[in-house]
């Protein structure tokens, strides 16, 4: 399977649309159903046909199952369906990778259906909805405040850009998990962070929720898990990388150490990532995204103000109705700047003291806990896939992990174990599930047998999971 077809086409986006069947029930009004369609320059007739076909499939499958239709497999495409809110459907269609083959002197296209996994693209689609919801609120919420036209505008506004950022070809098990990387930290430092956040929220009452991150790792979230999950995704895949790039290019003219208030130099490293780029230019408020969270009540609108010192980031969700005056930024800066800077260097020191990981281990793993969304991977050099080619195992191994995951998810057992070996025999993949935790190990040992692999994984579990209840 591997290596034979180097010129395989990548998975690509064929189309993506959002519709509501209730919007144009009568013939001739089908256009009304379509709320968003990508690519936008598609002929209306095709749009209507595509939506109609999906509607038909959905309706048809309903007669067989209580569960709505999830995916449709075709030779050249794969279509996934998602009904995020009542009567609203989202559909994503991707192409199946293909390669040119020759048989009996005749060239033909071979389609690699196995390269596309339903679970992964289902996750990609759901994520698309959640990201929309994070920035725009739920469909229902938009309709409560406005018209279907508003909803269309918002969908267009959001997805026309969001779809550009999708890296369908790199989607894998991590998209299925959509987990959070937590920062391991000692209790006392953690308590200090806690106290700083409590103080922040007590001092600035407009700050409703706070999250604290160090680099791309989460330390504390005052938001509910589900809100945090997608905000984390946004922060680590979009906001932070963009900010870092800007920083690297020296795009930010303002540095806090060069005197913010005009008073005696209060040197600290704090800066607003969203919000005013400089505290000396009171007319420039910068860009502060508005997001919708569901922690306190559904679709609560907040300003997402992000402040960073060294590697520590504080995300403050500020009441949406609050018109932030410029002085607010100033007092936040003088409150957070020094304390966050010192905390960040404390954490940094703790990290520096840790022994660097020893030479390349024989195995690589992915770990995920459904209960707290904690995720860990040594397969991905960079868990947020900012850079291409950061995956250190062949794509078919990644797919194998995805398949085992899909199998385990379908199984009703809480505990599960699967051991698989690739056709070439270079790799072993072991998938384990204990209670709500999943663990995949990839071992590159050509001559090992099943018993040896089993022993290897057992050892691994005892050394890595001594602190948790993980049955092996």
């Amino acid at each position: 399977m591997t290596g034979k077809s180097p010129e395989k086409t990548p998975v690509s986006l064929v189309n993506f649309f959002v519709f509501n069947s209730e919007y144009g029930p009568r013939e001739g009004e089908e256009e009304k159903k379509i709320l968003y369609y990508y690519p936008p320059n598609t002929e209306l007739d095709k749009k209507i046909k595509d939506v109609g076909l999906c509607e038909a499939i959905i309706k048809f499958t309903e007669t067989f199952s209580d569960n709505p239709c999830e995916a449709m497999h075709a030779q050249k495409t794969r279509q996934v369906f998602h009904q995020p809110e009542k009567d609203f459907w989202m559909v994503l269609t991707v192409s199946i990778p293909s390669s040119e083959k020759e048989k009996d002197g005749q060239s033909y296209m071979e389609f690699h259906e196995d390269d596309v996994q339903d679970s992964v693209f289902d996750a990609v689609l759901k994520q698309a909805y959640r990201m929309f919801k994070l920035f725009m609120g739920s469909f229902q919420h938009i309709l409560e405040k406005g018209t279907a036209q508003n909803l269309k505008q918002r969908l267009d506004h959001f997805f026309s850009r969001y779809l550009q950022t999708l890296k369908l070809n790199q989607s894998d098990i991590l998209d299925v998990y959509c987990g959070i990387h937590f920062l391991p930290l000692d209790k006392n430092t953690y308590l200090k962070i806690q106290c700083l956040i409590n103080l922040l929220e007590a001092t600035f009452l407009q700050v409703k929720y706070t999250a604290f991150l160090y680099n791309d790792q989460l330390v504390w979230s005052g938001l509910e898990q589900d809100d945090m999950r997608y905000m984390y995704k946004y922060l680590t895949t979009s906001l932070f990388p963009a900010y870092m790039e800007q920083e690297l290019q020296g795009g930010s003219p303002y540095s806090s150490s060069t005197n913010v208030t005009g008073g005696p130099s209060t040197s600290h490293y704090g800066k607003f990532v969203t919000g005013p780029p400089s505290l000396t230019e009171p007319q420039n408020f910068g860009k502060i995204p508005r997001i919708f969270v569901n922690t306190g009540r559904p679709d609560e609108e907040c300003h997402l103000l992000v402040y960073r010192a060294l590697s520590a980031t504080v995300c403050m969700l500020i009441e949406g109705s609050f018109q932030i005056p410029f002085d607010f930024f100033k007092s936040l800066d003088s409150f957070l700047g020094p304390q966050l800077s010192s905390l960040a260097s404390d954490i940094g020191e703790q990290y520096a003291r840790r022994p660097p990981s020893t030479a390349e281990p024989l195995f690589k793993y992915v770990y995920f806990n459904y209960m707290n969304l904690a995720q860990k991977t040594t397969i991905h050099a960079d868990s947020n896939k900012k850079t291409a080619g950061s995956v250190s195992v062949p794509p078919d191994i990644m797919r194998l992990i995805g398949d085992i995951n899909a199998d385990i998810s379908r199984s009703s057992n809480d505990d599960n174990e699967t051991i698989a070996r690739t056709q070439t025999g270079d790799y072993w993949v072991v998938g384990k599930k204990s209670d709500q935790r999943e663990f995949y190990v990839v071992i590159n040992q050509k001559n090992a047998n099943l018993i040896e692999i089993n022993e290897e994984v057992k050892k691994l579990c005892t050394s890595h999971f001594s602190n948790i209840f993980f049955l092996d």
Partner: protein
Amino acid sequence: MAEADSKSAGVHYVQLSKHPIRFEPVSQLTNVFFDETNKQVFAVQSQGAMGVVVKGPDDKTNINFRMEDRGEVISIKFSYDMSVLAIQRSQKSVEFMNFTEHSDRVEYSQSCRGKTTNIIGFHWTALNEIVFVTDHGIEYYQVIPEKKTLKCLKNQSGQVNWFVWSPESAVMLLSSGPLGNIINPFHFKSGQLYKLPKFEVDLPVIPKPPKLVLHERDVTMAQIYGVLYICVLRHHTVAGKLTAEIVLYHLQRENPARRSCVLRLNMSGRFAVNLVDNIIIVHHQASKTSMLFDIKSGGESDGYVTFYDPLVPASPIRPFMIRAPSIPGQPGADGQKHELELYSPNWIVFQPNILIDAKLGYMWYLKLSLEPIVSLIDDKVKLIDFLLRRKDSKMVILKVCKQMMLPDSQASLPVIAQVFDLLNAGYREYLDKEIQAQVVVPSLGSILDHLVPYTGASESTQAMDNLRGRKAIIDQSDMYTHVLSVFGDSKNIHFKFIVATLVEYIRSLNQVFIPVQHYLYELVINTLVHHHCFYQLHQFLQYHVLSDSKPLACLLLSLESVYAPAHQLALDMLKRLNTANEEIIEVLLSKHQLLSALRFIRSVGVVDTVSARKFLEAAKQTGDSMLFYTVYKFFEQRNIRMRQVSKFAPGEHCEPYVKYFEGLFGADALMPSVPS
């Protein structure tokens, strides 16, 4: 200042002891003396012929006797154990009288040396040791009551104007020089006389021609926080205004006493100094108020000397009711209660906390009440810091802390954090000392390097007193019972504040390595659960903010119905505890996770000891016959391994499950009893 005055109006933090010691007032017939060493008042009537009434701090020190009138008594003092009485009737000698039960009470006398020498005064310095202070120096004697003689121990000559004696530290200051400002300190210890470096008290103005300007009344000695200070009252002119200050000289063994603190009085006139609970109380007669100074609270240092303002606005001593003495010719007024004239010119103060009105015949101990001070110190951190150094302040501290939690008087988080840190620093210090005290016999540094005072208490009891009595220790249960309990009682405290406060407290405890008690965790958990902040709780557990324990794990298990992940958290915690395998099995069985349970007992090696019945019952309850089969076969294997037969032992009470198995799968499915 005006504002401060209004604030302290009606507030009385200094008060007189409720039960003063009464004695015969000074009159033509009665002379009254006070002995600072034994704290006894002597009312001598007709030079003793009509009787001497001695009143001391307790019944043992009260005594009445008569003695012959041999002239006017100048001074009279008992030895420490009251076995010898010393009476001074002239400037040349002191008479002694043995006072034990069978003694004949014959007086014997000791004259001072030299014809021109006059005795200024004398003091008992130890059990049978006495020192005469003369205008030519000091004479140190040992009294030998059996022989009715005195033996000279030491002499020290030099010109003396006046002297001050501190029985607590056994230190005597002699004033010399024409201005009186050259101070020679001496320390008395077990028959030895130690001369400490002399020093000069800095005078604001040097009169010409020179005359005595530093007087005995301006100088007192006080042991403050274990350090001996000489307090000198000093009047000087600042910007044309006469004002007074008290300068504290730190008395040292090797070096001349050093000017280390200045208490700014900002008034002038007559002052008197007392010391209560390490607080310097300065009484001002003209304004009829008293000021408090704490040399551990604030102060501005110029690098050498620290300057202090009164801790709180000056306030009068609390009014005191006395019965009027019967006045001849006015029989009706007899026994009538009326208010005592405070700050009367007849008042005399003695160290550390004694106040005497000889005209009225009253002796009081001064007391400090902490409650009124609470309202006068706004800065809670400063207040708690101050209270922590006071005796019997525990309840006051807890009350202040409680106030800080209540909505109307809620303190800010940084203040709460600092207060917690102060409380826990004291708590930690106490724990450390307690550990030390258990390990080695305490060898506490004495009051003044090697200047060990004469006290009845042994060093070790004193050390324990310092530990327990002096400093208030606020531990977790105190906080829980008296302060944090308000969170449960008061409905209108925002839960964010509650959680923030509890986290601050836990942080503070952790910072000084004090293990946090379970009930605090429970409070945090209950608060979070009550407000459905499960995810926050989850994160706390993830970072081990709440330490592992069986009770906590059980609490988590009980939360599973409202928050599913609590189950996983509980299991993880039980696993980490390493002593909770039983509990883990119970949890798994109750969740019908039979296979997990079997794998678990195998992984921890308890297969042979678990109860098969328990597993079979749980398996039966699932209604899953394949699962039951698996579990049954598992234990059949165990039976064979352990007893070479597949049957269960009668004691295991598994018969119903054997039947159930037969019912499901038939008897053939059972393993043959004897393996072939």
